[in-house]
């Protein structure tokens, strides 16, 4: 019924390499994929587009046998297949190159290529493995140094090792998750040339990307996912970046204006409480993860930060809270320069921080609820006086926080990991709000919460704003961002693309900026 004819260039009667029919995959409370159909033909580079959480990764995990779908079927070369383990997908010729490379850093390239490969010789000296690797490398046209250790390689070289590892296992369908995210433009060019050569041999590639111009450049067709369902498949030649971006984010958004201030609310302070001036951050690989960001935070205002995750939001959060040292640029708190990254100093200055991964970085899961609630206030009276720690005062504080967060806690001495994730989140939020007298940096504070809890969380943010606190609200959810933010900045590749007035913002513009394209009508880098 849903028969699609082979594209030109494919011999008639040739079945698609991969056909998905009605794929559905559900997690508790979440529909990750539903009714997804997809055809990938031999000799095709197929791009998969979608927001974070649109279901791309889940779909690819289904195709590579990491997940088993609850509904639908996978058809390879015309024959139905079920994969109960990733090894079966590899044997069937499906290879995946993950965004975060799965290489053993301390091993050589040759050792990594042969790792867990059933065709590897049983007894292999380094020389044999290196010779085999050299041969594979020449056969597929991906130059590598077989005797080099992976930890000494650049990101592009590591990616070539990953690809070779997949190709050596006779993959005919190569799936690449955000392959260019870590590459330099030259390396990207090399990768694309190699992918085209791979395609020319009658193989297929699925490429997941957020970079719309790269999708336009490399792909033959584009499929777009939204909310776990496929919106459509288009010939790339018929598309343009704006149309792709709009299709990607173009769901119905309920705009509720939470920007209106109640009477007596603090106005937006004219002088910024915190300023970033041309702040850049490099990670230990030397990659710029935050590029030349300038930003003013004003009391009584919510600044939303939109963008696909992994575009510098984490770095921005850490710089704003003193957890990460900047490589260049200036940070000003109340107009005076802050010369070192010291989270205690920022906390003392009234900067609260709801981090993205609360359990990992804001809580000590094995310690008691009380101990965890004291994390921000233990140095100060009434808990900390004369170097002591008053457990009773900490208990009082914990009770206060739990009451405000409306979390019922049977026993404050039990480890905090015994609480549900949502309750942990609320407790952290209230704990941070308590110390956020000047600034609150909230990274994805509503993630993982149900609708009622999200409304509560957004209410916390607007309450703080009305008290004159500067709120930085980082989220992927455009609906939430548009509803509470006064201004919205969009991050892309570590750059703050633009800061726009939320009232006037429209989805298409934000979508374009999220895809790294400057929209007409907004000044790039504007901060005022």
């Amino acid at each position: 019924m849903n028969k699609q004819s082979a594209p030109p260039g494919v011999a008639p009667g040739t079945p698609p390499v991969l056909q998905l029919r009605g794929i559905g995959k559900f997690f508790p409370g979440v529909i990750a994929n539903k009714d997804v159909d997809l055809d990938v033909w031999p000799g095709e580079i197929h791009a998969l587009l979608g927001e974070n959480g649109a279901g791309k990764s889940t779909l690819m995990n289904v195709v590579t046998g990491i997940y088993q779908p609850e509904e639908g079927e996978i058809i390879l070369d015309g024959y139905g297949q079920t994969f109960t383990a990733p090894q079966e997908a590899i044997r069937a010729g499906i290879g995946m190159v993950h965004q975060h490379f799965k290489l053993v850093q301390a091993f050589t390239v040759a050792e990594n290529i042969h790792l867990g490969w059933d065709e590897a010789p049983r007894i292999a000296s380094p020389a044999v493995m290196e010779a085999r690797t050299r041969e594979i490398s020449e056969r597929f046209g991906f130059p590598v140094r077989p005797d080099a250790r992976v930890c000494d390689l650049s990101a592009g070289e590591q990616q070539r090792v990953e690809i070779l590892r997949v190709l050596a296992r006779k993959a005919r369908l190569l799936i690449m998750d955000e392959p260019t995210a870590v590459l330099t433009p030259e390396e990207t060019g090399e990768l694309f040339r190699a992918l085209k050569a791979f395609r020319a041999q009658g193989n297929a590639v699925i490429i997941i990307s957020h970079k719309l111009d790269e999708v336009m450049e490399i792909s033959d067709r584009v499929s777009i996912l939204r909310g776990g369902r496929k919106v459509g498949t288009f010939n790339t030649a018929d598309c343009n970046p704006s149309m792709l971006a709009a299709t990607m984010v173009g769901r119905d958004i309920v705009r509720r204006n939470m920007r209106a201030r109640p009477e007596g609310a603090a106005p937006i302070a004219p002088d910024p409480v915190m300023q970033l001036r041309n702040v850049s951050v490099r990670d230990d690989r030397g990659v710029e993860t935050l590029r030349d960001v300038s930003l003013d935070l004003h009391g009584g205002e919510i600044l939303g930060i939109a963008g696909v995750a992994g575009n510098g939001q984490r770095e921005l959060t850490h710089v704003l809270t003193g957890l990460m040292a900047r490589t260049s640029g200036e940070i000003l708190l109340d107009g005076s320069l802050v010369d070192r990254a010291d989270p205690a100093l920022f906390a003392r200055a009234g900067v609260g921080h709801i981090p993205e991964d609360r359990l990992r970085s804001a809580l000590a899961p094995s310690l008691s609820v009380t101990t965890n609630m004291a994390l921000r206030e233990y140095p100060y009276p009434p808990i900390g006086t004369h170097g002591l720690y008053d457990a009773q005062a900490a208990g009082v504080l914990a009770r206060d926080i739990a009451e405000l967060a409306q979390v019922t806690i049977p026993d404050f001495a039990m480890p905090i990991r015994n609480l549900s994730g949502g309750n942990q989140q609320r407790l952290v939020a209230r704990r941070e709000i308590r110390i956020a007298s000047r600034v609150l940096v909230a990274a994805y504070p509503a993630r993982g919460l149900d609708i009622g809890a999200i409304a509560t969380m957004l209410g916390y943010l607007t309450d703080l704003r009305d008290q004159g606190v500067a709120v930085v609200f980082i989220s992927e959810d455009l609906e939430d961002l548009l509803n509470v933010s006064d201004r919205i900045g969009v991050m892309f590749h570590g750059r703050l693309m633009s800061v726009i007035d939320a009232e006037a913002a429209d989805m298409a513009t934000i979508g374009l900026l999220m895809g790294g394209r400057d929209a007409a009508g907004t000044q790039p880098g504007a901060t005022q």
Partner: protein
Amino acid sequence: MAARAFQRLPSAPAGRILVLRLAAIVLSLFIIAGVLALSGHSPVTLAELILRSTLGSRFGLEDLALFMCPLLLTGAAVTVCGTIGLWNIGAEGQFYAGAIAATGVALGLHGPAVVLLPIMTIAGILGGMAWITVPTLARAYAGVNEIITTLLLNFIASLLTYYLTTGPWRDRISGAQVSTQRLPVAIPEMWGIVHWGFPVAIVIVVGLALVLSRTRWGYEIRIGGANPEAARYAGIPVRLRIISVMLLSGALAGLAGMFEVAGTVHRLQGGMANNFGYLGIVVAVLARGSCLNVIPAALLMALILDSGIVMQTQQLSASVVLAITGLILFMIAIGDELAHYRPVASTTPKGKAS
């Protein structure tokens, strides 16, 4: 798919652990009795003898206290280090370093005990701290695994002790082998042969428990051990805390060495640490990270050691004693693990099999 009748909980209630440990000890005693009976010993006679020479007599209790004294301190040394998530495997070496430093003072300076003993105490503490300094700095500044560095320094300290006791510091008066002469001063005795180091060790352990639970420093150590990332997030200077904790740990083990040399043995002898440093690790594991628990754990360990000595007088070899120690600890470990499981009502598995 069969319903699982047991579920593993991330944390086990303390009462349950206690019950299962007692069961483990009783069970191991039965096994030991069985094996001894098979090898021709009378378990009843042996048990009677052991009880009489440990808990059942004043002399036995004094012996127990002397065994407990170093175990309390090395156990506390390992526990306090474990609070920040690090393993001090080098209490043995720090013990020797403390003993050597204290001996050096006793042999080199002359004066009344009231003057010498405090100096020896300080020297013992500094000796232990000095011995852990390199592992501490390597850990704090270069991320070098402290388990390896502290362990390797044990052998150096032990050999250094042999060198001193057979070389420059050998006993020239009575000609005792691998030993210095008897020290001119000793920690005074308070109850039979039990010296004042024992109550001091108890006070130190209780004090440490209070410091860890009732001071800002202790709070920061606990957070740093439970989640270093959260500690960084809260602005706790984790590196400084690591340095202070490791030095404290070394100081405790060094103090144990000083107590042993000045209170119990009265000489520096080769091999005198008697595995107290390593047994401190066992004590700490038994104490499950709580300083107060170090006291009963050290008592149990002292009981085992003391019983071992009694058994050796009954023609049982030292290896049998070691095997028994191992069996008891092994059973306790199983008991601890079982304490994490609780039975769940067996229900049909929910959801469809996929």
